[in-house]
């Protein structure tokens, strides 16, 4: 604990440039810090390390805390991969309409349960991505429509093609999509991930579901972060009776199977609510799940910092309590909070997916991963059309990505450890 708090200690310091000399280094450093924690400048090696001699060590010595964190984070290869994946996922969130090619609500029972098309990349040895048309005919025995690829009908794919109208970022009217097909309606010809029971395009629906599921997780984590920081802060900073009450509450919440409780809350939502109302209600229910862990982290940090000399010093020179908390204490554990928040996100995403999967969360016409997976509840259906399970893939990938990212951030949060 002690060496996580970089307090100036003359017995350890070997190089102590003035803060003014360090300032340009902090702002014009070649590596932009991902996590900025403007804590006190720490220019001394961690206890037990040798005295500074070489250039490399010199660079460590004068680096800001944010730079040290970034360097350590960069070394964590899985965390870098996780960060890249998370950024990619949120690009999908921002550009869901651009990345899809069919209107996610365009349904047609005639096109139900078409298997994913294979994309052919070369035509006569030249790069020219295309798909074969899906031809439907009735099976004379079962009267079901069966779709097969017809290799004689070649449909070339085009990029930046016009398609259904949408508003980019919710404001700019646009109709350009990353992929499209020449001359024909993509809703009727292109099925990169197949279609669902009602003939809606799975690829486009997964894009929109990513938007819903990831924003709901993000909003929920912010709400539970606010709850966690306030309650954990009160608990850790003031202690005493408030601490006891909050700690008991957390203990009780952790010793109770919570999913049945949230199911009960979710089921109590009136059936008449609009999609937006349900969205916010679910967000709040989910955020009630994650705050305990965040409160625990914040409380622990407050407890360990409360007794530090610099807090006493700030108190003695008459700093207001809010100033002590927000100027002197919070910057020191901001990085820990960011790491804990990242690690809390997967649980939120799983909760939304699970509730919607059960039919208690978001309801159609909302599109989320859980709503899409609802169609995969029946084994017989899944066995015949396994592509209905595809929405499980982004769920698993994003949870992995957040776990890797969170692990890396947690390691980097303590650059002196």
């Amino acid at each position, binding site marked *: 604990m002690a060496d996580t708090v970089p307090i100036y200690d003359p017995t350890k310091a070997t190089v102590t440039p003035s803060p003014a000399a360090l300032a340009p280094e902090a702002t014009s450093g070649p590596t932009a810090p991902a996590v900025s924690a403007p804590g006190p400048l720490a220019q001394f090696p961690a206890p037990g390390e040798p005295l500074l001699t070489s250039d490399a060590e010199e660079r460590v010595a004068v680096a800001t805390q944010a730079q040290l964190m970034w360097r350590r984070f960069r070394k964590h290869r899985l965390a870098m991969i996780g960060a890249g994946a998370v950024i990619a996922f949120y690009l999908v969130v921002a550009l869901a309409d651009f990345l899809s090619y069919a209107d996610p609500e365009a349904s047609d029972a005639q096109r139900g349960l078409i298997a994913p098309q294979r994309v052919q990349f070369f035509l006569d040895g030249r790069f020219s991505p295309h798909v074969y048309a899906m031809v439907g005919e009735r099976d004379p025995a079962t009267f079901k429509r069966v779709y097969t690829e017809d290799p004689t009908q070649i449909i070339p794919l085009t990029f930046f093609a016009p398609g259904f109208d949408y508003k980019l970022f919710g404001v700019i009217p646009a109709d350009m999509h990353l992929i499209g097909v020449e001359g024909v309606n993509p809703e009727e010809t292109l099925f990169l991930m197949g279609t669902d029971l009602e003939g809606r395009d799975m690829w486009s629906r997964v894009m929109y579901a990513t938007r819903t599921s990831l924003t709901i997780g993000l909003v929920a984590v912010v709400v539970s972060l606010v709850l966690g920081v306030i309650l954990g802060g009160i608990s850790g900073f003031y202690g005493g009776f408030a601490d006891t009450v909050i700690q*008991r509450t957390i*203990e*009780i919440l*952790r*010793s*109770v*199977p*919570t*999913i*049945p*409780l949230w*199911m*009960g*809350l979710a*089921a*109590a939502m*009136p059936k008449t609510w609009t999609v937006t109302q349900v969205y916010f209600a679910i967000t709040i229910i989910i955020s009630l799940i994650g705050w305990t862990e965040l409160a625990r982290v914040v409380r622990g940090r407050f407890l360990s910092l409360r007794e530090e000399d610099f807090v006493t010093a700030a108190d003695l020179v008459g700093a207001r309590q809010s100033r002590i908390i927000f100027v002197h204490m919070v910057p020191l554990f901001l990085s820990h909070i960011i790491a804990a928040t990242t690690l809390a996100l*997967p649980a939120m995403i*799983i909760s939304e*997916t*699970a509730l919607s*999967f*059960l*039919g*208690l969360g978001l309801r159609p016409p909302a599109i989320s991963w859980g709503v899409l*997976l609802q169609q*995969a*509840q029946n*084994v*017989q259906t*899944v*066995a015949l059309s*396994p592509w209905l*399970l595809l929405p*499980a893939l982004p*769920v*698993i990938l994003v*949870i*992995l990505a957040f*776990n*890797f990212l969170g692990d890396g951030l947690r390691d980097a949060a303590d650059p002196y450890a």
Partner: protein
Amino acid sequence: MLSYLIRRILLALFTCWAISVLAFVIIQLPPGDFVDAYISNLSASGSGISLDQAQQLRAEYALDEPIWVQYARWMRLILRGDLGMAMEWQRPVTEVIGDRLWLTMVVSIAAVVLTWLVALPIGIYSAVRPYSPLDYLFTLLGFLGLAVPSFLLGLLVLYFGFVYFNANIGGLFSPQYADAPWTGAKLLDLLRHLPVPAVILGIASMAQAIRIMRANLLDELRKPYVVTARAKGLSEWRAIWKYPVRVALNPFASTIGYTLPYVVSGSIIVSLVLGLPTVGPLLLRSLIAQDMFLAGAIVLLLGIMTVIGTLLSDLLLMWIDPRIRVDD
């Protein structure tokens, strides 16, 4: 030790009370009182009750009185063992729940026990041979175990079982035993069906337990007393098992208290996917039908069972770890 025991039991009682309040809130949440829901439910199925009967029901549950009186009335009924009527079934809640509550606990406890049986040796191996190929493999599997939500894992297992073995591996009993009275054969049948749901339920906590055990033991193995033990010529086996493993077990053991609630929570959703005859499917159905007495009773019973399970595991821990006995 006695004071710890008393404090622990008091906390458990307090938790049970908190759960009862939460369950009551869930019963109260839907608009209208439950007699309204009851009547609309009955008229939907063709039958109805008279106004008198409705009034009588309202009086019995004190629905005209303030909310705390209603709560007190409900608690009194529950303490007498009367959990109310399940509207949809037209039968007492206790009868509808039947074996399902026990089966929920059987599946959950099996998952917890399995978690321990698997996580301990793997965690020790990973710490003793860190960065070995097997350690990397377990780490990778652990990450996957953490990342795949249990209900999705259930879906995948079910799908692959169906496609490759052409067998439905869901359920807890073979069809011929499903409604049969309890016999030795039925018990054996249950044991045969138990591993699949137990693994699916336990895999996430297993992954976590492996990571905790590995980290703890790694810290412990670096300590000077282990070096001393080796220097004195203790066999590697003894140098690891005699003290470091036992010390590393303690923080590991203290996580058990939070494993059970987590697993019970998960069992609700997994049961739905795998079609297990636990309270999970019943809870979902009662919530969708707004059969709130049944839903409240399930939440309450599930919570209390979990608290008891956690209490027992804590007592077990106290018996294993003398430091808890001495310190408090």
